[in-house]
């Protein structure tokens, strides 16, 4: 079946675009297209346009900004649907700008959506509500497809297992119900943001460590900075550690040779 072979061979960005759009569409069919749709369109429009312009200025050629569409979909799907439109646009613009400005050795440091959402959240008190993440089964199925297709199971587990263990310990220690606290695990964040290849480490072993670090940081921020979104803060902090992790991983690999 050529059709399925073609689908299977799609790149990660196209998978993300299809899955993120399906989740947003599903939620909008369920809850109404307003006010979410205009926000989503503004986020995607600003990201795509800005990325295309920057790309054109750098390379003097036009290309369709697939990764910017992913960024826009993430920004629009995580910010609250009643956010001010200019904040949505600004978050999208910051996301794309950070991708082109904050770089080390040709790779951007921060997951672009994370930087945009951080600015919106820290400076404009924008609530991050993850409005299209509610369909856990769909997110899980998409996550499994992405993990199977792009060999990311180790990263998903490296985040999920420590996070579940830490939350269980926290719930038991405080006499809270355990399972609902384990389900604080944000699958949407895990499937669509933690696995981002450009801002996660290059080697499998190092990537596993990165997953564990991100999980630990999410738990830590959940405690010390509860007024901000722990997932987004933890990914930003973990992204900062990636150049060092890559460097140490490379040195160790050379030594082992």
């Amino acid at each position, binding site marked *: *079946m050529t059709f*399925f072979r073609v689908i299977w061979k799609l790149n990660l960005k196209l998978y993300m675009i299809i899955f993120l759009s399906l989740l947003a569409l*599903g939620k909008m069919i369920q809850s109404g297209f307003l006010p979410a749709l205009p926000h989503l369109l503004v986020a995607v429009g600003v990201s795509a346009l800005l990325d295309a312009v920057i790309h054109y200025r750098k390379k003097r050629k036009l290309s369709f900004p697939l990764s910017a569409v992913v960024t826009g979909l993430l920004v629009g799907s995580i910010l609250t649907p*009643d956010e001010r439109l200019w904040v949505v646009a600004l978050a999208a613009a910051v996301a794309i700008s950070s991708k082109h400005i904050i770089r080390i050795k040709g790779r951007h440091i921060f997951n672009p959506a994370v930087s945009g959402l951080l600015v919106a959240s820290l400076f404009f008190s924008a609530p991050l509500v*993850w409005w299209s993440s509610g369909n856990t089964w769909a997110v899980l199925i998409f996550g499994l497809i992405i993990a199977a297709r792009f060999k990311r199971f180790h990263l998903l587990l490296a985040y999920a297992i420590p996070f579940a263990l830490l939350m269980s310990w926290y719930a038991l220690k405080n006499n809270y119900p355990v399972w609902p606290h384990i389900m*604080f695990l944000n699958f949407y964040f895990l499937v669509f943001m933690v696995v981002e290849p450009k801002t996660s480490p290059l080697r499998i072993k190092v990537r596993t460590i990165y997953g564990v670090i991100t999980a630990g940081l999410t738990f830590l921020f959940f405690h010390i900075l509860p007024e901000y979104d722990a997932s987004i803060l933890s990914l930003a902090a973990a992204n900062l550690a990636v150049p060092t992790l890559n460097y140490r991983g490379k040195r160790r690999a050379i030594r082992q040779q």
Partner: protein
Amino acid sequence: MKSIIRVVVVVVFLTVLIFITRAQKTPAEMDGEHRHQMHGQHHGKQTEEVLTPSGEIIDGVRVIKMEAFQYGFKPDPVAVKKGEKVRLLVTSTDVVHGIMIREFGINEKLPPGKEVVIEFTADKTGTFTIHCSVFCGSGHGNMYGSIIVQ
């Protein structure tokens, strides 16, 4: 054979997805309460009515007991009068939640079973969204309430 399995898997997957997406209801819909689904839709109607203020006045402060739960706040909406000093006594009844009312600079964590006291002056009129600021599970995106200052 492999192709047929793939077709079946994709068809089943899409059917399940459509089913889940269309059938999944918010907790509020299930228990028959009036609740908004997307923040903006809900607010216009509320502001047209004049609501009886929530809670009671104690020593010149409007004291309102609130509950946070998966996935909502009670009472919803909360109604107060402009200029009143408001004290919210908020308790989470199940898991850790957060309460955020951006317009009044409120953002607090709500551990289960512990009453958290939040004080502010309702110095502007309008309908403001109460968000949960801690990701508290799959329905987190549906967890919000509103406060009406009239």
